[in-house]
């Protein structure tokens, strides 16, 4: 992708590339903890999908399948709100890796 500068914007600062913020990988904000999905405990209530502020719950074929670490910021709401008897999402330690934050 070419470099994005103001010169490429449509006159009137109209952005025609709706939803292009998906190129911003907010997962790079995580600092030290991340959620881990434990499929066998999951009751497919979709609360994690509902309450995730960063659209980071993977849903496929009508089922919660895990975490999209490209966007997960590690806030922990999903784990707190997960209602299954044994938690299906737990927060675990994560080594911090410095990354670029932008998908080319």
């Amino acid at each position, binding site marked *: 992708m070419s470099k*994005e*500068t*103001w010169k*490429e*914007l449509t006159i009137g600062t109209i*952005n025609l*590339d*709706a*939803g*292009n*913020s*998906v*190129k*911003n*990988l*907010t997962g790079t*904000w995580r600092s030290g903890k991340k959620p881990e999905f434990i499929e066998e405990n999951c009751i*497919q*209530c*979709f*609360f994690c*999908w*509902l*309450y995730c*502020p*960063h*659209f*980071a719950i993977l*849903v496929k074929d*009508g089922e919660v399948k895990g975490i*999209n670490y*490209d*966007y997960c*910021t*590690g*806030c*922990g*709401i999903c*784990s*707190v*709100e997960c209602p299954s008897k044994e938690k299906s999402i737990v927060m675990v330690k994560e080594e911090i890796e410095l990354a670029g934050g932008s998908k080319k």
Partner: protein
Amino acid sequence: MAKLKDLASMEDRLVAGHGLCLGCGIPLIFKMVLRATEDPLIIANATGCLEVCTTIFPRTSWNVTWIHSAFENAAATIAGVEAMYKSLKRKGRIPKDKKIKFLGVGGDGGTYDIGLQALSGAVERGHDIVYVCYDNNAYANTGGQRSSATPFGASATTSPEGSQSPGKLQWRKDLTKILVAHNIPYAAQSSPHRWQDLYNKAKKAFETEGPAFLNVLCFCPTEWKYDESQGIRLAQLAADTCIWPLYEVESGKYKVNYKPKEKKPVLEWLKPQGRFRHLFKEENAPILEEFQKQVDRDWEELLKLESF
């Protein structure tokens, strides 16, 4: 009734990659609101966290037609757009039966304060619009100044607690009732922790002919100063303490949508939040007492209004 599983399979009109904080309540609110209509949607958004963090140059998180408004006029902007489409229909430029929804959005600063006259005018003129205020109790995007929605006793950068002051001295403005006083067809208060309540109210608002207003309490870990994993817990406590009652007013008729089995003391909502920490000092005990009394008065009044 809608099922979460089905809602999850709908296309997102607000997408990933936005720059809202860890644990922010705003995206949860709009995840539901934007699913409550499948018609084409045009949004006017007053500046504030939502507007700034979803449109960081040169990108946008909006998958729908979206207009950046100034701080004070989102309601006027969306009213103008609605009026234009009405005129295009009248002139036969677009089909008369084409359904388009018009949504104005702003924070508490942009709605309770600087945008109030634009909103008042737009709903008084009877535009067919929905306006959603996400009330995070502060001017969050500019660092946490007090607004007229900031709770009594809260420490904000322009109402700091200290030796000369116990935090904000004024009780919060009751914006929802101000909108009710405009005699609009639909006005309601909701919260993101009860997704059905929020979804149903947003759906009703979109289906209402004429102006509809939603006021949604929005947790904000950055300005409320609490552990960012606890937002939904706090939202639940705001309803259980009756600090933020969930109710709706349809053509003047009040309905309270959630009555806690056991009303919890306001302390439970205040305690986890750093902006209220000073209230737990001995000398501020009267402030806490006054806080509880005022919440009790407001709740009793609401129940009375419902009984008419």
